[in-house]
């Protein structure tokens, strides 16, 4: 069995690329003040740098602790019985997957790099899609996208129906039962709590600060900035190291761009994937079909008006011919 090569050796091979990237790096708060043409912010996650120390995970939990759910117990009896409660309140320490109390975790994969088994670690959380299905398809508008492109769920409005999780290509949002608006409506018959996910520390960004996970990282794994700059940097690094980019086109584009020295299909095969542990597969744009159909919606009234007009003109011509024959 091949021994694991050290993290240091692995990083060494990418040193030149890191130096090159640093030369074009956009400093944190300055980057937040800058906007691309759409005003969207994106995060570059340079997988080579991640050492899996989980400082980002801890920082996320500390910073967002006040937002974590404090459910009322006992939970309402749910009808019908197939509706299961989702209770993470007794398992708040779980940090190897996404939960309502853990919006970021470190995913681990052992893959071959230059013929050596290498452990790759990477932070996983909401991808913050450019056109997020969780936001666009939420039936109540409780999931929302901010002007800077980042998405969040309003815990005061969310009913916990979990549609956002169903339509998310990565199944990111996680439910906690026993909290939220549904308790004041029909707690046994509709809703089931509140959905939780990374909100990209939107209040910190509004104050000109960086998300907590970025600030806490000792290895500068993550960089936040205007999306087009982040994508350009990701491609520059990928070109330099012969690496790979994930998140640029997935689901029509996301605001989380991973760059890796290892093909993502290899990483995808090597990571544990189940509920709360998202995949790294290619993802088609989930919203594309509907938006193409919307073009047909513009044409439909034109077709309807044209059909009515043709029928009217035909009827008028027929009447005129009929009148002409009668007069003749």
């Amino acid at each position: 069995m091949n021994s694991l090569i050290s993290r240091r050796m692995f990083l060494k091979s990418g040193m030149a690329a890191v130096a090159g990237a640093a030369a074009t790096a956009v400093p944190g708060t300055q980057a937040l003040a800058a906007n691309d043409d759409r005003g969207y912010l994106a995060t570059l996650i340079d997988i080579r740098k991640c050492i899996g120390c989980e400082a980002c995970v801890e920082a996320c939990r500390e910073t967002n602790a006040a937002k974590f759910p404090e459910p009322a117990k006992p939970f309402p009896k749910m009808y019908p019985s197939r509706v299961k409660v989702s209770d993470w309140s007794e398992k708040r320490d779980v940090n190897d997957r996404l939960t309502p109390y853990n919006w970021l975790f470190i995913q681990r994969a052992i893959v071959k790099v230059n013929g050596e088994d290498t452990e790759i670690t990477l932070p996983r959380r909401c991808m913050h899609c450019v056109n997020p299905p969780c936001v666009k398809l939420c039936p109540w508008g409780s999931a929302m996208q901010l002007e800077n492109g980042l998405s969040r769920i309003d815990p005061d409005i969310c009913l916990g129906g979990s549609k956002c999780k169903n339509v998310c290509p990565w199944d990111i949002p996680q439910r906690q039962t026993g909290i939220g608006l549904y308790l004041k409506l029909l707690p046994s018959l509709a809703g089931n709590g509140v959905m939780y996910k990374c909100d990209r520390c939107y209040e910190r960004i509004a104050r000109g600060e960086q998300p907590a996970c970025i600030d806490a990282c000792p290895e500068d794994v993550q960089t936040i900035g205007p999306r087009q700059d982040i994508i350009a940097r990701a491609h520059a690094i990928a070109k330099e190291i012969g690496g790979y980019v994930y998140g640029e086109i997935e689901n029509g584009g996301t605001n989380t761009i991973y760059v890796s020295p290892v093909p993502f299909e290899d990483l995808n095969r090597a990571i544990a994937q189940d509920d709360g542990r998202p995949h790294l597969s290619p993802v088609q744009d989930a919203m594309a079909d509907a938006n193409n159909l919307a073009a047909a919606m513009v044409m439909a009234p034109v077709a309807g008006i044209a059909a009515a007009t043709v029928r009217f003109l035909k009827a008028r011509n027929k009447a005129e011919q009929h009148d002409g024959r009668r007069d003749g």
Partner: protein
Amino acid sequence: MSVEKTRTAVRWRPVRLLYLLTLFFMALTGFGQMPIYNRYYMSDIPGLGWLADFYVTRNIHYIGAVILLGLVFYAAFDFILSSRRQVKLSASAWVRAALLAAVIFSGALIVFKNFPYVHLSDGFIIALDLFHLAAAMAFLAVNCVCLIAKKKWAAAV
């Protein structure tokens, strides 16, 4: 019934059938945008598993919207161009038309909202979602009343 009235009824029969079918599927898939069909076992009924797939129901809802828009504009312009002098709309028809217009207008805004880079205020989106649902339910309720009371779109001239 006069020959002219019979001809009109025959001409509108396929349009009416398509309209009713479209309304049925739009209502079915519209309610399917809420996570209820799986919870309440409806998608467990053989042949109805697709009701639990939000993308399938959303696409069918959009296709229904295309057909409904075509039909509504066809009927409206046919009325304006051809039938206005011969046919008068009943009071219930005006109520139904107003509710249908509210459903279509709010639905169009939701479709617009779903495009990338479109940002509407959070409060407006919540109000829009609730308004679309309320208008659709009111439209269906009024149609049910009209069906039971045998109220027609056209009033006796």
